[in-house]
């Protein structure tokens, strides 16, 4: 195996162009290596590239760890970060690695979907900005082409006034989401809801958003209708972690609860 440890992005992009597998915190990649599912012949470690760890306002470098998002991120993103794995995992794991894996259960994704973030991608031939809904293409699939690296997450300049993250799982720490969700609510009532683990990619529920955005101060029955529309709008499956029915139910309950927090 060949390993590169570049200090600059250009060197890393050159290695990626030659077919090297990107390695950030290793918390997804090494599990696959340890269980014999992947055996890269060439890797490029991204830890030493200062440019990828830069964080300028709404542009967050892909090498930023969940530990830093937990400390410095916008509210709902920080709340999501706090639930990723354990301290050991958050110290190593990066937002770029989360996107590289593109697990349907990735806890970082609902925030990006709820605020309409974009993913910045680079290769030796240039940079492109991909909106979140074009980035996630299926379970563990994304829009990255061979030789491309994720360089940053780009949030809108102005975030909605309120935003809240929540996750349902079988215990408090170290748990993969059964459902995770972000609800945002802006001053004039405009609301978004994005969920993870209830579809092949993170999803928004436009019907629920439109209905509740028209309610300046939602009544109890409006909140109930919002929850129902969320449950109806998700596309969960039954797997080893939960059932379709439970996920559908939990999605509505969780989204309503987060909306209530935004309204409080």
């Amino acid at each position: 195996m060949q390993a590169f440890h570049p200090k600059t992005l250009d060197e890393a992009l050159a290695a990626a162009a030659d077919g090297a597998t990107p390695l950030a915190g290793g918390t997804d990649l090494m599990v696959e290596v340890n269980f014999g599912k992947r055996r890269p012949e060439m890797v490029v470690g991204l830890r030493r590239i200062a440019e990828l760890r830069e964080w300028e306002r709404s542009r967050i470098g892909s090498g930023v760890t969940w530990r830093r998002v937990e400390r410095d991120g916008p509210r709902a993103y920080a709340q999501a970060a706090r639930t990723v794995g354990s301290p050991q995992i958050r110290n190593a794991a990066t937002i770029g690695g989360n996107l590289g894996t593109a697990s349907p259960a990735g806890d970082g994704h609902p925030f990006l979907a709820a605020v309409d973030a974009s993913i910045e991608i680079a290769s030796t031939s240039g940079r492109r900005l991909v909106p979140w809904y074009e980035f996630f293409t299926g379970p563990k699939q994304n829009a990255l082409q061979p030789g491309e690296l994720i360089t940053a997450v780009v949030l809108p300049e102005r975030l909605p006034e309120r935003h809240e993250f929540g996750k349902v799982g079988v215990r408090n720490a170290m748990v993969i989401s059964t459902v995770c969700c972000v609800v945002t609510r802006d001053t004039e009532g405009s609301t978004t809801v994005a969920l993870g683990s209830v579809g092949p990619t993170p999803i928004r529920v436009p019907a629920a958003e439109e209905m509740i955005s028209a309610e300046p101060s939602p009544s109890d029955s409006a909140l109930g209708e919002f929850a129902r529309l969320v449950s109806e709008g998700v596309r969960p499956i039954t797997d080893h972690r939960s059932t379709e029915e439970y996920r559908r139910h939990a999605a509505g309950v969780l989204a309503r609860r987060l909306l209530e927090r935004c309204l409080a």
Partner: protein
Amino acid sequence: MIVEFRLNGEDVNARVVGPTSLLDVLRDELGLFGSKSACAQGECGSCSVVLDGEVVCSCLVMAADAEGSEVTTVEGLSTDGLNPIQEAMLRSGAVQCGFCTPGIVVAATELFRVNPSPTRIEIKEALAGNICRCTGYGAIIRALESLSGGEQ
């Protein structure tokens, strides 16, 4: 391939084959058996080490990517005898089979380095990535609480 890094304050060279983990290299090549190997998937924390100033699971660090890094294992936490965390764990009966102990000592030492008087909740959160099969959590948390705001 030969990987060079600083281990417990000394420069070392290790022979590394393929995408092996740092944990395997510490144990099998460098003969440091303090870091334990259990789940190999970041769940149990028994392999915890400090890598460039952060506690991480050494089973998830690719050894080749430790090149030029600073690594501290449980063996490097005290130069002579036991450190105050190890002493407190012994005093409180926080060690049963001892398999989880090195990882807990590493995580706790790092917690106290950044936060000398952690609350009970902060202690629990700092140990959320360390599993003890012998269910010694009560004694472990009491041991660390006894140090909070104390001589650390």
